[in-house]
C-alpha cells in the first residue's frame, strides 16, 4: 500500500507534537519540514528528515508531497492553507480554522476549487474517554441529556516546560488579539464547542461571559451558555489561568448522569513512556487524528472535522463574542 508523503509546516509547540507523531505513523512518510526558525529545523534534522525549509512556499513546491500539516500561528492559517490547496496538497490544519469566518470561507472555497481534503485538528474527538461517553449517551442509558457541562481549563500558552518545570517562552503573537482572533474563548472554546457539537448537534444560540483576570484586552477565561439542536443546554467553561489541565464533559440525563475527562498519566508514567519513545496518553488523540486524516485521504472520505464543520465552530464563537453576558 502506498504511503502518504507528508510535509509539516510550523515547528512550534504543537508542530513538535505532530513531528513526533508523524515519525510513528506507518501509513505516512514525513518527507519535509518548514519553519522560519533554523534552531527548530535542527530538531527535524536530528530526526532524519531529509528536506527542511525556512519558507513554506518552497516546501509546497515539492512535487512528491501529497499532504501538509499546518501548525502555524492562527493569523497565517488562511494564506498557508490556500497556497497548499492551490498546489493540490491535502491539508491538515491546526484549529481554529482561521481568525474569523470570512478567512475560513476563503480557505473552504480554495479547498473545494482544488478538490483536496481539509481536516481541522480537533484532537479531543479522538480521545477514548469522550468516545466512550458519546457511545453511552447514544445507547440511551442516560435518557435524554438535558444539561451538560464542558470544561477546558489549563495554562493556555503560559505553561511550564514538561518535567523540569522551567517556564517556556510565550510567542509574541499570543499577546495580540488581531493575530489570534481572540483569547481563551477562541483558543480553548473552539475545542469545546467542536466537541459539544459532536455530542449534541448544532449550536442554536450561545452567550458568553468574558473574564480578564490578567488585565489584557483578550479574555483569559470565559463561561458560555449554549443551546443545541438536540435540546441539550450546555455550560462551556474555558480558561487560561490554571496550572493544571482539566478537560472534560459531564452529562446530566433524564435517567442517569455520566462524565469523562481527558488527562495525563502520572508524571512518573509519562516520563517512562517518553524515555521509551512511546506516545504519552495526553498526546494519543493527536496521533489518532493524523491516522484518521491519512485514512480519509486513502478512502476518499470527508474527515472529522472538515472545513464546513470547523466553520460552524468559528461562527458559534463569533456569536458568543457578540452576545456577551455582563455579570456586574
Amino acid at each position, binding site marked *: 500500500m502506498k504511503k502518504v508523503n507528508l510535509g509539516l509546516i510550523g515547528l512550534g509547540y504543537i508542530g513538535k507534537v505532530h513531528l513526533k507523531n508523524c515519525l510513528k505513523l506507518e501509513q505516512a512518510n514525513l518527507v519535509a519540514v518548514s519553519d522560519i526558525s533554523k534552531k527548530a529545523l535542527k530538531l527535524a534534522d536530528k530526526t532524519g528528515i531529509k528536506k527542511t525549509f525556512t519558507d513554506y512556499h518552497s516546501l509546497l513546491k515539492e512535487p512528491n508531497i501529497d499532504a501538509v500539516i499546518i501548525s502555524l500561528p492562527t493569523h497565517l492559517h488562511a494564506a498557508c492553507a490556500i497556497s497548499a490547496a492551490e498546489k493540490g496538497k491535502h491539508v491538515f490544519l491546526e484549529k481554529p480554522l482561521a481568525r474569523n469566518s470570512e478567512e475560513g470561507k476563503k480557505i473552504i472555497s480554495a479547498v473545494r476549487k482544488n478538490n483536496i481534503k481539509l481536516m481541522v485538528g480537533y484532537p479531543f474527538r479522538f480521545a477514548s474517554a469522550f468516545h466512550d461517553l458519546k457511545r453511552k449517551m447514544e445507547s440511551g442509558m442516560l435518557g435524554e441529556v438535558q444539561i451538560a457541562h464542558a470544561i477546558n481549563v489549563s495554562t493556555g500558552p503560559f505553561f511550564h516546560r514538561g518535567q*523540569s518545570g522551567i*517556564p*517556556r*517562552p*510565550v510567542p509574541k503573537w499570543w*499577546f495580540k488579539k488581531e493575530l489570534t482572533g481572540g483569547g481563551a474563548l477562541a483558543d480553548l472554546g473552539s475545542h469545546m464547542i467542536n466537541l459539544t457539537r459532536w455530542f449534541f448537534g448544532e449550536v442554536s444560540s450561545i452567550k458568553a461571559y468574558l473574564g480578564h483576570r*490578567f488585565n489584557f484586552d483578550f479574555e483569559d477565561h470565559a463561561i458560555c451558555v449554549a443551546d443545541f439542536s438536540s435540546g441539550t443546554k450546555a455550560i462551556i467553561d474555558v480558561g487560561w489561568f490554571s496550572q493544571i489541565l482539566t478537560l472534560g464533559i459531564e452529562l446530566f440525563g433524564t435517567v442517569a448522569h455520566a462524565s469523562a475527562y481527558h488527562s495525563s498519566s502520572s508524571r512518573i508514567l509519562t516520563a517512562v513512556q517518553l524515555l521509551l519513545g512511546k506516545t504519552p496518553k495526553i498526546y494519543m488523540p493527536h496521533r489518532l487524528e493524523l491516522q484518521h486524516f491519512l485514512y480519509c485521504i486513502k478512502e476518499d472520505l470527508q474527515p472529522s472535522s472538515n472545513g464546513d464543520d470547523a466553520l460552524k465552530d468559528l461562527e458559534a464563537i463569533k456569536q458568543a463574542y457578540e452576545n456577551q453576558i455582563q455579570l456586574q
Partner: protein
Amino acid sequence: MSLVSFVETPKNASHTMRQAILESLDLIGFSFRKETKNIVIKPNMCYYWDNSTGQTTDPKFVGTLIEIIREKTSSEANISIVESDASAMKCNYTFKFLGYEKIAKQYGIKLVNLSEVEAEPVKVMVRNQNFNFMVPQIIKNADLRINIPKIKYMELTKISCALKNIFGCNPYPKKFKYHSRLSETIVALNNILKFDLCIVDGIIVSGIQPRKLGLVMAGQDPVAIDAAASQIAGINPNSVRHIMLAASEGIGSPYYIPKGMNPHHFERKYPKKRLKHKLMTRGYKLIQFLGLENQLEY
C-alpha cells in the same frame, strides 16, 4: 549576627499587610530616611503566574510598602519597580499581566524594564570564575534598594529567596545561559548589586503546592534571610550552594538572630517536599546526568 524578623499576618488584607510590614521593619530597627530621593524596588516576577500561585510577589504587598515609603520619606521621592526580561518572560507583558501597571498608576511610580535602560559594564570574580555584567544605572544610582522576594523551591538551587531574586536585576535577557553555573552567577550579582533592605512576601509561599503562610520576614542581610527561608522550607542552609558561597564571599552571614515570632511556627506550616518528591527530583537529576532530559519533551 544579623537580625531577621518574623511576623504573621492572618489575612491577606491591606491593613494587616501594612501592620505586618511596619512591625517587621521595627523588629530589625530599620527606619526610612526622610531625605531618600531615588528608591528601587525589586519584586519577584519570574513568569506569567500571579501571586495566588506563591511564585510571584503580590502587587498589593508592594503597593502597601509604597504607601509606607511615601509616608516615611519625601512624597516626591522617585520610586521605581524594576524587573528584567528573561528567557521565557517579557517584562513589559509581565507588568501588565501581574497587575503592576495598576499599582504604578495608583501610586504614581515608574515600572522599569532593566533590559531596556542604560547600564555600565562591570567585571566580577567568584571562585576563580569571571563574570561580565551590565549594571543598570537606575540601581547603581538609587539611594535605597529594596528586595521583595518570595520563598519557593527551585530545582536548580533548591531554594529561591533574597539572593536568587537579584538574578532578575541582570539586564541580559537570555538568562538560561547562566543555569550551568547558577550559584556562582547569583553570588556574583549580589556582590555588585547590594540591596539595603529585604522584605519577604511570604503571605503565600510556593512549596510542593502554594500555601497561605501569612509570613512577612525582614532583614538587611540577604544571606541571613536566605538561611531563614531555607530553614522554613525544610532545607538545611549548609546544603544550599549559593547561600554558603555568598557567606564565603562576605555578602552576609547565614547565622542570624530571630526577632518576633518563632520561625518554627512557619516551618511547621510550610508545604515541604516529601520522600516521593525528593525521589522524583533525584530521578530527574539522573535523567539530566544521562543527557536524556530532551526526551522528556514531546
